């Protein structure tokens, strides 16, 4: 049962996940297109999942992988509902630019 952690070490995976998470944060703040923001949120979720699996392998404990499994189920549900909301917004406003969604502003 050889795996990558014997040659790489956990630090590189921590660094990779941090960078991936920051790219996701950057995407949410940088874009106005709501779909791209959703994709950035997916990237952030994946960064966290990757670190979960890395530490699960590091501690040789399968429970971290079970948590990733549940987080994937929640991510799938979140994307389905979120995209449905986006479709509804697009029907009403014919745009998904988030700067147009100011109706609640006083």
């Amino acid at each position, binding site marked *: 049962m050889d*795996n*990558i952690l014997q040659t790489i070490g956990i630090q590189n995976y921590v660094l990779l996940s941090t960078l991936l998470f920051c790219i996701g944060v950057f995407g949410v*703040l940088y874009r106005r297109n709501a779909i791209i923001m959703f994709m950035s949120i997916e990237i952030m979720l*994946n960064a966290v999942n990757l670190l979960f699996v890395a530490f699960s392998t590091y501690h040789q*404990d399968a429970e971290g*992988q079970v948590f990733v*499994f549940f987080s*994937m189920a929640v991510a799938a*549900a979140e994307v389905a509902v979120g995209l449905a909301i986006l479709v509804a917004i697009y029907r009403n406003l014919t745009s998904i630019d988030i700067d147009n969604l100011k109706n609640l502003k006083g």
Partner: protein
Amino acid sequence: MTLFYILSAITLATAFLTIISKNPIHSAIYLVICFFTIGGHYVLFNAQFLAIVHIIVYAGAIVVLFLFTIMLMNLNRENETQKKGLVKVAAAISACLVGLVLFASFVKSQPFVPEYYVTGEDFQSVKKLGKVLLDEKEGFAVPFEFASILLLVAMIGAVLLSKKEKQANG
């Protein structure tokens, strides 16, 4: 060893291209590549079950959903209005600050396992994982059932939300 660096470079590059490409279709394609490389990382960890599930759920379901939505909204044009320059600079600065804080907190932390060694015990094959997940005494059978309810509710909600509203007649 080199495989890790190649995969990581592709992951980070495609994640960045997902965000900066103007056409949403291109973003979705880059996102598929990003998810595949993350699946490759799972294979490197020898986590077979999660690698397969990741490919099926993310590349198979979520990105297809994204692509259908993009096509439904007919967004494959490149005339999206950009944010103002100052907002972009602020976004870059805050992302860098988040990275700085996270990295500073991780670089000072001590590993819980002082020295990593492989016991050779099989802990993440599909068989073992199924036992951990659905064990009768200390398994995760109840959260598993709740996940199925969550998916059912999400499906009903998505159908209800995306259904065309009838013309209001009172």
